């Protein structure tokens, strides 16, 4: 954690002044200040993202050049002579997915941005339950440590995919048990965290900050928290059951008469493998919207600020995301069309799936129309925000053929699915995260990030993301299955599209290189970045309007602001400046 402390130290340069003295540990490590916790979340999550990214780059080697010793990091795998063996590949795949979703994006989008920004945007002194807030972070941290250490477990880390379908996961090596324990910690963290957010947003809004005056980002976090609160327990239950299967020898997920490599499996039997899938997807579908809603929120903030005009159709967007959140609980079995569903269930879930695509269309459309009549500033955060729109569009649109059972027959469990959701989470959510980091960095540090490095980060990233994921859709249409450690080399139907693999892997590694610009930018700008005032982007929302940058170390606001207007009063006719902060009564 050493690095976190340094970052905070800089982050709060003149914060300390206002600070009734706490010891070093309370201040930086076991801090209860939402801003410090936000930074802890952010930094930890970024490290996990980088780690998950690294795992993936190893996978990409095996996909493009199966059975060839991997350069650079080969020495790590002496046992196999530097070759990524299938069992290692399966571990990398499962852990990449798990880490990216549960240890990377969610903590970054909700834990970091939510923690840091939401209280500021609603004019609150802190989260409603600071102690709980600290608890959620450390629970997340422990969960992460368990997940990482599982690589050293006998038989290696979890290797049954991030979906951990039994019976395979029931009979998998110890790593799977650690995966389950890790999950339990992450779930506790998320449940406590989301409860904290909900109370904060409902109870601690500044006077005058009515629901329809909330910045869209807060709305997104609000809905997200509901999803986390009510969806995660299902996986919690499932994890407990699988734990019982693995440790107490029960057979919740094991039917009778299993024969594994010629031997009878000695269990009572009578379980149902599909039960796990229902419980898992009951969480995991809402979970994917947990990955995208905060992204929507950030994008909306950045777009409103850089178009210098109010969001178009703010209300419809609010209703849309609320509806989206509600619907996301009743579409989960569209992941299970191929499990032998009859007509009743498939009709129900195809219909709900088509319905749930509409709110996304509404939000995207509103965001695009917001550009009409704008005066667009092409700042770095805006670049990422704009790139998000078409990228999410591709990801979302490719969801449609998957959502229709008959076309899903050919596409299910192929790289088309991988392409679909990576378009939403990688050039989608990750770009939104980048936009958020570039946008709020001055708030954290009082300095701006370098625009030049930002450009150097953005353009290649944009290019290479597509270089990886578009061919995936083509390979998927050719029917190449996912989770193939040789990228399909041994299958006839994969041959016509096999040549893409090297190209995609190349793009992936170049994508990795282009991240260096970002990492340098991040650390360099902390010390040397151009000094920024309290409101460098001339924004209207409270986080900029009422506090210093970086914010007061404790309490956030010198005096509690009163809100007099909607979140995005940019270019208000008759106003002297082209933006009117929310807490400003009338034009001075």
């Amino acid at each position, binding site marked *: 954690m050493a690095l976190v402390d340094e970052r905070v130290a800089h982050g709060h340069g003149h914060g300390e002044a206002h600070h009734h003295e706490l010891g070093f540990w309370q201040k930086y490590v076991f801090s209860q200040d939402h801003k410090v916790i936000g930074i802890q979340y952010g930094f930890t999550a970024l490290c996990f993202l980088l780690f998950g990214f690294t795992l993936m780059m190893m996978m990409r080697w095996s996909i493009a050049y199966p059975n060839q010793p991997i350069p650079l990091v080969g020495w790590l795998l002496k046992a196999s002579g530097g070759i990524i063996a299938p069992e290692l590949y399966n571990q990398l795949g499962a852990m990449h997915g798990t880490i990216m979703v549960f240890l990377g994006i969610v903590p970054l989008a909700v834990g970091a941005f939510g923690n840091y920004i939401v209280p500021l945007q609603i004019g609150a002194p802190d989260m409603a339950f600071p102690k709980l807030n600290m608890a959620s972070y450390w629970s997340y941290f422990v969960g992460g440590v368990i997940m990482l250490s599982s690589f050293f477990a006998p038989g290696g880390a979890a290797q049954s995919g991030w979906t951990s379908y039994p019976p395979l996961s029931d009979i998998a090596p110890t790593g799977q048990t650690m995966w389950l324990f890790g999950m339990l910690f992450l779930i506790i963290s998320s449940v406590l965290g989301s409860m904290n957010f909900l109370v904060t947003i409902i109870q601690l809004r500044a006077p005058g900050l009515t629901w329809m005056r909330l910045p869209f980002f807060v709305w997104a976090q609000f809905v997200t928290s509901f999803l986390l609160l009510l969806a995660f327990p299902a996986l919690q239950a499932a994890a407990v059951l699988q734990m019982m299967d693995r440790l107490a020898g029960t057979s919740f997920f094991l039917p009778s*008469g299993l024969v594994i490599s010629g031997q009878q499996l000695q269990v009572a039997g009578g379980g149902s493998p599909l039960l796990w899938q229902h419980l898992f997807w009951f969480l995991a579908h809402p979970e994917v919207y947990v990955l995208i809603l905060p992204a929507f929120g950030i994008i909306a903030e950045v777009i409103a600020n850089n178009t210098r005009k109010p969001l178009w159709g703010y209300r419809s967007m609010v209703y849309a995301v609320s509806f989206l959140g509600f619907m996301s609980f009743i579409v989960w079995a569209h992941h299970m069309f191929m499990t032998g569903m009859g007509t009743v269930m498939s009709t129900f879930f195809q219909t709900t799936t088509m319905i749930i695509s509409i709110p996304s269309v509404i939000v995207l*459309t509103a965001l695009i129309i917001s550009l009409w009549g704008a005066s*667009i500033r092409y700042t770095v955060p805006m670049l990422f925000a704009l790139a998000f729109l078409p990228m999410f569009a591709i990801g979302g649109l490719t969801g449609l053929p998957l959502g229709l059972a008959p076309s899903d027959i050919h596409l299910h469990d192929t790289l088309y699915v991988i392409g679909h959701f990576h378009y939403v989470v990688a050039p989608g959510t990750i770009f939104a995260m980048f936009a958020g980091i570039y946008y709020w960095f001055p708030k954290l540090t009082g300095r701006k990030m370098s625009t030049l490095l930002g450009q150097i980060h953005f353009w290649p990233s944009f290019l290479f993301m597509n270089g990886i994921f578009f061919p995936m859709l083509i390979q998927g249409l050719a029917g190449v299955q*996912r989770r193939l450690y040789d990228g399909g080399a041994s299958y006839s139907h994969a041959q016509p599209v096999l040549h893409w693999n090297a190209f995609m892997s190349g793009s992936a590694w170049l994508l990795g290189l282009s991240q260096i610009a970002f990492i340098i930018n991040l650390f360099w700008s902390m010390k040397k970045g151009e000094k920024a005032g309290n409101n460098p982007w001339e924004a209207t929302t409270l986080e900029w309007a009422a506090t210093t940058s970086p914010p007061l170390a404790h309490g956030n606001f010198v005096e509690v602001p009163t809100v007099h207007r909607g979140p995005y009063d940019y270019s208000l006719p008759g106003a002297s400046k082209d933006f009117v902060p929310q807490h400003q009564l009338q034009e001075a």
Partner: protein
Amino acid sequence: MGNTTLGLPMGFPPSASSHGAQLDQLTAVVHWFMLVLFVGWGLFFVYCLFRFRRKSNPVASYTGAKGGFSTWGEAAVVLVEVVLLVLFAVPIWAKRVGNVPDKSQAVQIRVVAEQFAWNIHYPGKDGVFGRTDSKLVTAGSNPLGLDPSDPASKDDVTTINQLHLPLGKPVLIYLTSKDVIHSFYLPVMRVKQDAIPGQVIPVYFTPDAVNPDKAKLPDCAVSKTCWEIACAQLCGLTHYRMQGYLTVESEAEFGKWLDDSAPKPAALAPAPAPVAVTVPATAAPATAAPVGSK
């Protein structure tokens, strides 16, 4: 072959089943719809990026866009999705999983997946499957657990990774798994169905094309141009090549093949021996670890 890929990208496999073309048509229609949406919205998007950049529009408009663009656009999207659902998806799916061909007409086959092979089981002349029992399973010699004492099992034909089908006859497959979840995937037949232990799931379709020469064994195994059974669900170490071979032939040839392979026990599976045995061979060591760890 009765298929039109309707401008789906190269590499999209040919369809060799009577229902394939219909699925492909839906896939194609959806993708055209996606393309239209993307281009439509995209053009508007790009135009805005250009027209409303700070230089050409220094002062933003507080009220922004007017008129019903969004309402109409969204209404159109809803309409198209309803059509896709009501006219295509739901009926097609109902057709796929409804009307099971009746046993007398159909070729009945049991397919039992295991790590990492496909056990194929034909009832033989008497048209009755011999009794099977998981307790009788032995890794090498009797992977299906066939009960030799059952007269019906005498003439049963069992193969590993060799699925032969007659042209133009409905095929009724009883799909299950011995160990973990696999997914029975015949790309050219547009068939995919998870094989779930403890459940026997019926799968049915009608092949409407025979293997082209380049897809005939044994050569195709070398040139990698076979028609294959693929496993589409992560099932362990050797999932990446849990591969079987599909041969569609005229009814006469099919009958002949059945007769030829009738007496043989499962162990020495029919040609091509190398391909047939490699997979199960790797299976045993691959799974040893997991089982031990339980």
